[in-house]
């Protein structure tokens, strides 16, 4: 990489009363990329975003945005916009006033303000709703007002803090596509916090998976899925998540390792021909396929997919097999071993 990263976090740490917030966050984000910060709640992804936004100050480390060290700069000096989980719309202002709030504060002339407002509303499909108050809008419309407010000033960096978590599932899918398209059309850099791996995997160029204040893995969605760096990533990414086996139940892998295997790499074979014998504990019909959950004393999260509707009664014993090349091997500490 020759171009310097647009956003750079270098050993950033933030602690609250000695308690862990985030620790040792080092991250390079190229211009025009879509980066998702993913992790379970309390993993520090929102803290990282707030540190970037300037809503919190780091205890250690450096933050550089667009070549400028902004570690201690105020939020307003960082030339970025943000979409809040709650949208943070001003309830007494109309849609138009909400959207142009920042421009007005920055003394942009009225004509230019009107022009940008019209464009932002058009992009977000809010034309005709200018004079409504946020309280008179649906959840999806409010979300789009928040988006319009974030893009109107033309800031190159946009931070999003779980912007879809207050929408229903169907709307979420639609807005997901809208946001992705918006990001590409405007060529802005988006840093997106979510706890929903589907969102992260489907939207982001780069996914940053975090846990307990530390980055676990940074990579393309495909990397996280097919080459998880450790057992946490393996179990977090993918639906269903990767099954983990103790290496002792298989031949030739030693005793202190953990073997990961994805559901799609497992085949059901006739009795006596499999590498493992398991008991069915649940069958879940998903539409195109049926997810069959399996129990085995040396494994967790083991399951297999069968096409169409093919429920298997609970308690049935079945044999499964898989190929060595599809196995992921982790050492005793849970770190991925080469390969």
């Amino acid at each position: 990489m020759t171009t310097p990263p647009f956003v750079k976090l270098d050993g950033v740490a933030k602690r609250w009363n000695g308690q862990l917030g985030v620790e040792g966050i080092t991250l390079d984000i190229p211009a025009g990329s879509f980066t998702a910060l993913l992790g379970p709640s309390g993993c520090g992804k929102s803290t990282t975003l707030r540190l970037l936004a300037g809503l919190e100050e780091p205890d250690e480390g450096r933050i550089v945005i667009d070549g400028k060290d902004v570690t201690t700069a105020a939020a307003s000096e960082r030339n970025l916009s943000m979409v809040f989980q709650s949208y943070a719309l001003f309830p007494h202002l109309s849609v138009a006033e909400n959207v142009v709030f920042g421009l007005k504060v920055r003394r942009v002339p009225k004509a230019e303000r009107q022009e940008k407002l019209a464009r932002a509303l058009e992009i977000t499909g809010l034309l005709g709703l200018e004079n409504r108050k946020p309280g008179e809008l649906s959840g999806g419309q409010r979300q789009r007002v928040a988006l319009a407010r974030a893009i109107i000033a033309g800031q190159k960096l946009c931070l999003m803090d779980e912007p879809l978590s207050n929408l229903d599932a169907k709307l979420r899918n639609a807005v997901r596509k809208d946001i992705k398209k918006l990001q590409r059309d405007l060529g802005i850099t988006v840093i997106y916090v979510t706890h929903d791996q589907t969102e992260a995997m489907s939207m982001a160029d780069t996914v940053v998976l975090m846990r307990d204040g530390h980055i676990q893995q940074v990579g393309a969605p495909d990397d996280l899925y097919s080459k998880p760096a450790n057992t946490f990533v393996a179990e977090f990414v993918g639906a269903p998540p990767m099954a983990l086996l103790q290496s002792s139940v298989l031949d030739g892998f030693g005793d202190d390792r953990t073997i990961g295997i994805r559901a799609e790499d497992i085949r059901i074979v006739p009795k006596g021909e499999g590498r493992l014998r398991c008991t069915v504990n649940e069958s879940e019909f998903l539409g195109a396929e049926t997810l069959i959950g399996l129990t085995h004393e040396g494994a967790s999260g083991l399951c297999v997919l069968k096409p169409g509707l093919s429920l298997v009664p609970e308690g049935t014993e079945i044999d499964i097999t898989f190929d060595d090349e599809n196995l992921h091997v982790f050492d005793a500490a849970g770190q991925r071993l080469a390969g």
Partner: protein
Amino acid sequence: MSANAKLKRRRQAIYGWLMLSPAAVLLTLFAFYPSVATLWSSLFSRGTRRNPSEFVGFENYSYLFEDPTFWTVVKNNLLYAGVTIPVSIFIALAMALWANGKIRARSFVRTAYFTPTVLPMIAAANLWLFFYTPGLGVFDQIGSLFGLPSVNWLGQPETALWAIIIVTIWKESGFFMIFYLAALQTIPEDLKEAADIEGASRWTYTRRIVLPLLMPTTLFIAVNAMINSVKLIDHLFILTKGGPSDASKLILYYIWELAFAFFDSPSAAALTILVIAVLGIVAAIQFLYLDRRTHYQ
């Protein structure tokens, strides 16, 4: 079918009236009836043993308008209201904004501000009597440190009303602050963060976001302060008794004097009716005008 619906509606109506009746009975007994009775008695002359009371129409009112004390009292009360309402609202807002911030000893500050409200007005007045007393009082003691002459704050017409005004502001701001504090706490933290990111200064945020969102509270407080500017006269009894030479006399105190010191209840009734009418009109204007410019969440 329609008979059934009729029965149902009637039952609803009875139910509604039953719910209303306790409030209706109490209000009628203690508010509506006294008001109407006052209005009625304001239209009759003062009865003595030789001249029984008789219907005189608006004569009591015209006597009032000819009474120079009436005009002094009205002028006093207008000044009193005109100063105490805006100043106590402004101080309450400033204190609330400060006590809502991230400061040390926040609950101590809040409690300290609220203390005057907890004190009964009579007790507060006695406290201030001690502050104002010439020679002995706190103000004079402090003044004498700087070589200032002793001032009889309550005893001279130029300062008496202002001394009363200060006590009222001191008493009321803490009370109003509590309402502002409560309202401030309903403003979500992320509005401030969003405004920060958009580049709004602290002042812009306060002016464009906080103050408009506090408007319902301000309206409520303004109406209350207005009513209090007529209602709150306890301290007059302790501090000045309306003197010297009516300089600090307020309307309600004058009504009390007319009714119970001069035993001129028809005049007192007439003045009461005037006060009710003016208060009603002002409250209606406040609500109609400000309501339209207020955002309710």
